[in-house]
């Protein structure tokens, strides 16, 4: 009787919590991991494990010894970060590479900013950008699924030789779309299988961990802009990291705007930047940098896109 809890309302709470959401996202990424192992072999599992283990250890060590705060690795956010990083790098990288990337993701992009909730940039994408700058050769060596032959990714062919060569590479348009959709193409570990990415995304929608605003505006903008610039909209969406980025990376709660309108703007911005980078910049793929660039605008969007409070009349 003497131990009654006294706290401010509300006294009840729905069941969602940070660990539930983060582990939910991890669960949604599981089918993609299976696809990665199927297409790229057990080595892919090694890459993911190296990334995840490094992320978890980094977070735990920094929280415990540097900041002397409670260790929160069990909430799964470090694991999510590690998986996403591993999914966005080529399958044939040496195993130390994802580990270094995860270290940078967690140490610099996440903990330096104050930990989960305060990071301005998507940690996994910072890790990837770091790796791409530091080891460009390893980060742009793509191997074919199943047989492991290296060569250019579809987007690389598009950049260098034009769209007709891409179609030629796949055989015809139908096989191109099916291969891209199933994931039987060269590309990053977790980017290739649109089908299983969508399966995971459906789970996130079902759990309401993500809303439609960012994915739809992101993919819609890419399709629209590539159609307007004479490209193939379906190819633009299915190739590269678009699907992974739209459903799992750009939708990161911490680094995207909080309001729905803001999220629409964010998605449109990312989409437009992806098309711009693919068309005009040095890289064949631009999801990573597009997301990071829009991350910088998130605080601005949140500052100007606010809900109109109940009963407040616009002057």
């Amino acid at each position, binding site marked *: 009787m003497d131990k009654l809890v006294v706290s401010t309302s509300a006294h009840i709470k729905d069941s969602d919590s940070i660990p539930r959401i983060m582990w939910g996202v991890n669960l949604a990424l599981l089918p993609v991991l299976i696809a990665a192992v199927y297409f790229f072999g057990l080595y892919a599992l090694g890459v993911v494990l190296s990334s995840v283990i490094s992320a978890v250890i980094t977070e735990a060590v920094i929280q415990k010894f540097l900041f002397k705060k409670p260790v929160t690795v069990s909430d799964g956010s470090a694991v999510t970060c590690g998986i996403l990083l591993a999914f966005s790098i080529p399958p044939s990288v040496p195993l130390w590479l994802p580990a270094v990337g995860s270290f940078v993701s967690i140490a610099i992009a996440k903990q330096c900013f104050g930990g989960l909730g305060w990071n301005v940039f998507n940690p996994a994408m910072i890790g990837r950008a770091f790796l791409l*700058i*530091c080891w460009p050769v390893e980060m742009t060596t793509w191997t074919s699924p199943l047989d492991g032959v290296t060569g250019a990714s579809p987007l690389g062919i598009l950049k260098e030789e034009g769209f007709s060569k891409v179609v030629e590479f796949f055989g015809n348009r139908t096989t191109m779309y099916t291969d891209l959709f199933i994931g039987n193409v060269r590309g990053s570990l977790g980017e290739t299988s649109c089908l299983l990415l969508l399966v995971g995304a459906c789970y996130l929608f079902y759990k309401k961990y993500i809303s439609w605003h960012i994915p739809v505006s992101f993919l819609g903008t890419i399709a629209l802009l590539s159609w307007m610039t004479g490209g193939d909209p379906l190819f633009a969406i299915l190739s590269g990291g678009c699907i992974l980025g739209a459903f799992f990376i750009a939708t990161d709660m911490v680094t995207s705007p909080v309001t729905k309108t803001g999220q629409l703007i964010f998605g449109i911005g990312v989409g437009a930047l992806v098309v711009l980078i693919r068309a005009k910049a040095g890289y064949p793929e631009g999801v990573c940098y597009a997301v990071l660039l829009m991350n910088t605008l998130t605080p601005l969007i949140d500052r100007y896109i606010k809900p109109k409070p109940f009963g407040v009349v616009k002057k």
Partner: protein
Amino acid sequence: MLKIFLNGIFKENPIFRLALALCPSLAVSNTAFNGLGMGLCLLFVITSSNVIISSVRNLIHPKIRIPAYLTIIAVLVTMVEAFLHAYVPALHKSLGIFIALMVVFAIVLARAEVFASKNTVWKSLMDGLGMGLGFALAMVLLGIIRELLGSGSVFGYNIMGQNFKPILIMLFSPGAFLLVGLLMGFFNWYERRFTKNL
């Protein structure tokens, strides 16, 4: 006197504590050699500008002190550039525009305004030496770390061996930016620990 000298090296290190002169520290600290060269140039410029400005501080009309200081600094920098070009062309080539840019380095004008214009020649000399040396040491430190991680060597000598995959970002300004940030954090942390023990 010694205190003024040491002040610039650690307690008010231009890069890590005052966060001044960040532009050159990001741009030309990519190798230890460049860092050292830049550091020595600045050491010369800031020391002589401090000495000259402090010795003429009572002659200059307060209304035009900034243009006057800038003229003095510009003369010194131009001299440095000319001599480097003539006698150390290699360094001149790798430092490039940043030698001329020393004119507008915040740290030089800041010390002139904050310190030299209010203190005696001797004190200003010490301050200039301390600040210059602090800057030079910081630049060499940055240069060593960046060269080691970015090219696997220090002062051109390969250290990391052939299998080392250089961390290329360290050769770019973003890498330097990260490094400066981390070192600043380290210095803050160190000072906080240090003062707590007192």
